[in-house]
């Protein structure tokens, strides 16, 4: 059958199960948008291409499906770079389709031409420039396959205008096979037995789970392992929701802003079972002192994650779900779960640490940001999908909202992208129109993609934005307060907008709380309002996130409240 490149694109998107994409049109993609109009795909018109990528990313994180966005060449393409890098660092499956100038103009500095394949090479899992329409279908199929398989990631496909226009004989492409790309899902069974042998002999084990557990849908298997053997669990920022935040075995997050008991447990454990993590510097602090009394089992689908930052005793290359299933099976065969009292002393020790230093704050006559998050947790009964911006707001959300399940927590962990939260919340809300979706924001971050309020209003997406307004760039200010003798260089946002009026200007509802008494009322009212809402909370501007491990220090060197 004869089809244009643009029609082939729509065909493959449908074939790959895509029903929604996020984008922004332009000259180089007019033909693609023309074909889109004739398809039954849903397209959300964002207000900035960065918003499109973050929205696709939020959609992907909330659903586990591949997020898709479509933008034009040149500035359209460069505006996606931050979003692509965000998804790359957190291993989120995306297919980003960019327009390109016609092939005969490539290299001529044509209008709105940029070498986006060159620019995004280091921040995509893979990328393609389609030079012939005959290759388009295969490349798109490969792009989806690469994005969602193995360790997921963003894949960019650059389609020149004339490739979208060209007509070719289209026949559906068979299943993708790339001979140099075969991710290892099934772990080596010998390694599984070695891991179980360590588990059997451990007296003070800890499970440390990361984003890989969420991505491979291994939360149930992880929970089984921990509960069967009574092993306490901590997660990285990316792993929140991978283990129920209300479970007695839950230690809280570890690392720079981790809980006292999680960091102490890591430092005193004799076995660390690390699942789907990459030992980021925000987790390990000084690597020489990280879990230095422990043997480490490290399960990850990406071999480069293993022995990159931390030496391990038993590496297991494989999918987290697959590997944990194998481990649980061997544990059951060997009857290891029967001795539930085995780690009683260790769990008591952890409980002592928990009592010594809990996450805490004191609500006085100004609103404490932690109080807002805690109230939000209560009022949403811990069921909301929570997106965040980056900085203090993100850390307080991580500490005080206790996540029950995977894919409920949507945050830019690796890249730390301010401006991520609002568009990501929009993407999650598109996927789950009935869910309560909240963006926990700061007054700094929210202004980086505030224009997407218009998108939320246009499509009736009832995203609730909670702005913890401290009139400053709080996290950097915190570092300046603690380590730079309170020299607040360029971190005080002396002039902010009136967020209530701003919300109204966009056609959303705006609410404000100035006094602690108003917090609950404003939250309740905001959550009960149909449609998008901005809730502004004027919070203590000197509040810091504690505990805090200064960068490069051992994680036991915690500054406590």
């Amino acid at each position: 059958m004869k089809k244009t490149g643009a029609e082939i694109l729509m065909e493959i998107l449908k074939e790959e199960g895509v029903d929604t994409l996020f984008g922004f049109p332009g000259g180089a993609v007019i033909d693609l948008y023309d074909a889109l109009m004739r398809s039954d795909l849903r397209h959300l018109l964002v207000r900035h291409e960065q918003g499109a990528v973050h929205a696709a990313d939020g959609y992907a994180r909330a659903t586990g499906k591949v997020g898709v966005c479509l933008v034009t060449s040149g500035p359209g393409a460069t505006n996606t770079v931050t979003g692509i890098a965000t998804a790359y660092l957190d291993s989120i499956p995306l297919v980003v389709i960019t327009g390109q100038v016609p092939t005969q103009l490539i290299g001529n500095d044509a209008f709105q031409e940029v070498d986006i394949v060159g620019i995004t090479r280091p921040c995509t899992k893979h990328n393609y420039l389609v030079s012939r329409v005959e290759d388009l279908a295969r490349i798109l199929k490969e792009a989806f396959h690469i994005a969602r398989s193995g360790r997921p990631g963003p894949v960019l496909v650059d389609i020149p205008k004339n490739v979208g226009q060209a007509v070719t004989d289209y026949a559906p492409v068979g299943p993708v096979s790339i001979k140099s790309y075969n991710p290892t899902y099934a772990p080596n069974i010998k390694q599984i037995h070695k891991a179980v042998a360590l588990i059997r002999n451990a007296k003070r084990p800890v499970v440390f789970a990361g984003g890989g557990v969420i991505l491979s849908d291994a939360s149930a298997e992880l929970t089984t392992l921990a509960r069967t053997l009574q092993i306490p669990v901590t997660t990285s920022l990316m792993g929140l929701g991978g283990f129920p935040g209300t479970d007695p075995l839950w230690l809280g997050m570890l690392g720079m802003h981790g809980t006292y008991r999680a960091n102490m447990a890591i430092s005193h454990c004799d076995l660390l079972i690390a699942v789907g993590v990459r030992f980021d510097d925000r987790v390990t602090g000084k690597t020489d002192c990280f879990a230095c009394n422990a043997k480490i089992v490290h399960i990850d689908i990406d071999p480069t994650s293993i022995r990159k930052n931390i030496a391990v005793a038993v590496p297991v290359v494989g999918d987290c779900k697959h590997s944990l299933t194998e481990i649980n099976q061997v544990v059951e065969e060997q009857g290891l779960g029967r001795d539930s009292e085995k780690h009683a002393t260790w769990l008591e020790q952890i409980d002592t640490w928990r009592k010594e230093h809990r996450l805490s704050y004191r609500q006085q006559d100004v609103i404490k940001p932690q109080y807002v998050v805690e109230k939000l947790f209560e009022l949403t009964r811990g069921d909301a999908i929570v997106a965040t911006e980056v900085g203090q707001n993100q850390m307080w959300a991580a500490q005080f909202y206790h996540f029950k399940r995977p894919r409920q927590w949507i945050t830019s962990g690796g890249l730390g992208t301010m401006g991520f939260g609002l568009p990501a919340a929009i993407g999650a809300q598109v996927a789950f129109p009935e869910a309560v979706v909240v963006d926990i924001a700061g007054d700094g971050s929210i202004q980086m993609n505030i224009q997407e309020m218009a998108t939320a209003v246009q499509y009736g997406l009832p995203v609730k934005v909670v702005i913890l307004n401290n009139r400053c760039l709080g996290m950097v200010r915190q570092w300046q307060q603690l380590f730079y003798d309170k020299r607040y260089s360029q971190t005080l946002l002396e002039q902010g907008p009136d967020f209530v009026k701003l919300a109204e200007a966009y056609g959303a509802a705006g609410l404000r709380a100035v006094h602690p008494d108003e917090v609950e009322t404003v939250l309740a009212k905001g959550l009960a309002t149909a449609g998008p809402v901005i809730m502004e909370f004027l919070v203590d501007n000197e509040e810091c996130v504690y505990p805090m491990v200064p960068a490069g220090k051992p994680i036991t060197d915690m500054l406590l409240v």
Partner: protein
Amino acid sequence: MKSEKHTLTMLVDNEPGVLSRVVGLFSGRGFNIDSLCVAETMDPKVSRITIVTQANPLLLEQIEKQLRKLINVVKLREMSDDRAVRREMALICVHARAENRDEILRLVNLFRAKIIDVASNYYIIEASGDADKMTALIGLLKPMGIKKIARTGTVALYREPKRGI
């Protein structure tokens, strides 16, 4: 941990941008490239890239894993030990004064090199061998005056099994 030279050879898809992915990986991750050679293989769809790098064992492991992760890298092998042969090539333009010509010819013979161009005062020598041999030849020619030099990186091939030899 001790840092040593390692020769890595990879077969890659012969497509635009592939070299840039490989080289970009090295620069982006702070790996080092001592030398680099690229050319097509017998299969025009496949190129062979040979890179000499300096790394300790842990870093080498990471370099190899990262390279294998590139979608366009089909096969990767370390070619540092005796199971492989390694060669470089150089074109050396040396000042050939009358009093030096005999010595140059003798060195050319000893090193099994060739003179491939003769000008009034200069010879161009073509030489190949392993890295040590090239360094030695260049060292011996240096006192006579090397005007210019062009060297390739290392290329390497795995030896086939020697059954019955």
